[in-house]
């Protein structure tokens, strides 16, 4: 009962926030709604017993990445209406294709889910905890994980090169 109330509240909040994040004119206000969206998603993860993922969602997405968004937007001093104007026709076309692909994905996900009644059954004990996720990551998914680490390293080196360019 309590879970259902939480689910419907935060599911609705995440959708409304996501919508507002796209439609707001001011970039900082958009990011605030995006934070709200990410936080609601974390609550939904908790309801689905993915506790570790929920914590990481808040720490990494809502906490760190969106904080950097806010930071960069303030740094660049973006004013109302300065983002979101795609004048380039090629970019508009790419955006359209991406939107269609996402719609297609939504359609197949909803169709594949079938008729759902009530909440899914409870996950087994230990599911979604840090230990279970860690074991999976470092055994079955070790190669993707290492690749991701290399990708992040490349990004860090790239950032250092870009930041150090003007000083030397």
């Amino acid at each position, binding site marked *: 009962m309590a879970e259902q109330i939480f689910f419907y509240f935060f599911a609705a909040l995440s959708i409304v926030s996501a919508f507002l994040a796209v439609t707001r004119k001011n970039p900082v206000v958009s990011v605030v709604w995006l934070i709200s969206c990410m936080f609601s998603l974390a609550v939904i993860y908790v309801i689905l017993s993915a*506790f570790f993922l929920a914590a990481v969602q808040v720490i990494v997405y809502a906490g760190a990445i969106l904080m950097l968004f*806010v*930071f960069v937007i*303030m740094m660049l001093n973006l004013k109302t209406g300065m983002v979101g104007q795609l004048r380039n026709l090629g970019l508009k076309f790419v955006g359209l294709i991406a939107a269609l692909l996402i719609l297609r994905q939504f359609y197949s996900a909803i169709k594949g889910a079938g008729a759902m009644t009530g909440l899914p059954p409870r996950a087994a004990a230990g599911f979604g*905890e840090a230990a279970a996720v860690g074991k999976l990551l470092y055994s079955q998914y070790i190669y993707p994980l290492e690749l991701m680490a290399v990708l992040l390293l490349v990004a860090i080196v790239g950032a250092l090169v870009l930041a150090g360019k003007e000083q030397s």
Partner: protein
Amino acid sequence: MWIELLTKVLIAGAVLTGILSFGGVLTWVERKQSALMQDRIGANRASILGFRLLGLFHIMTDGIKMFAKEEFIPRTDHRVLFLLAPFIAWLFSLAAFAVIPFSPELTVAGYQVTLQVANPEIGLLVAFAMMGMAIYGVVLGGWASNNNYALLGSMRATAQMISYEVALAAAAVGPLLIYRTLNMQEIVIRQGQLYNGWLPLWGIVLQPLAFLLFLVAGAAETKRVPFDLPEGESEIIGFNLEYSSMRFGAFMFTDFIEKILVACLTTTIFLGGWQVPWLADDGFRLGGALALELGPMVVWLLRLAAFGIKVCALIYVLMLVRWTLPRFRYDQLMSFGWKFLLPLAFLNIIVTAAVVLVLNL
């Protein structure tokens, strides 16, 4: 179900009231202690019917003053964010206390009672997540003020807090590798062992470097001297420039709450939480004939008191530091965090991991 819900609400209420009252008392302690260190008498004017009570009534007068003052709201496009910002910081700082284990479990009339609102498996991560979210109050408050000085102040504060948050989390990884759990109660229980039968194996004994790093990063995270650039009340213009009345008070009070939070986290991870040295579940065990039988209720109360004493001691140390050291310059602050604290924390992680692996702890 209703009884469980009721006990949870009661425990949450007790923790909330306790933290808020303690925060209020700390405002007085801070004034008195700074006075002591600067050879002054300190706040002692407020009185009720002639009783001054060491100036303790200043807590009340401060509150009344904050609420009674006129609130000035600057002309801004983002009035809602401006009004909300102090409470974002406040709310998330308080939410982090939900996972702090103030006491062990006690069975009363068949019910498990513990002064901990929630005990999730990922407890420590929840605390870090809430601390991370609390930073938004500072950022959005400074931005919504529609004042360039406040904006600069909030960017300075944010840069500092996200930098030291990384060091804070990295410093906590070392002990976590040894405890092998993120659950807050479990972390405390793991620290109950004795080395050679006399030395309590607390986190500070196993991980002295991590303890220092955590405390320093924690002081920076809560914007304490020598890391108080975000506020620097009298010298630097901070993010809270445009705030007045109780909204300013909320920002200031959040600092005290966060200070308690950092002290609670440090106590839990490094100072054995509610563990009392040589106190087992049934009384003191000092080895040999030296033993003292105690009932479960007495043991529980002793442990609760131990947590409080450790937190108070840590806060006192942080206050001593505050009135001793001068403030960092901004570039010194940044290079100290990124080039000194963080590499040391990483080194600590690597060495700890190797030792844990070799000794198979």
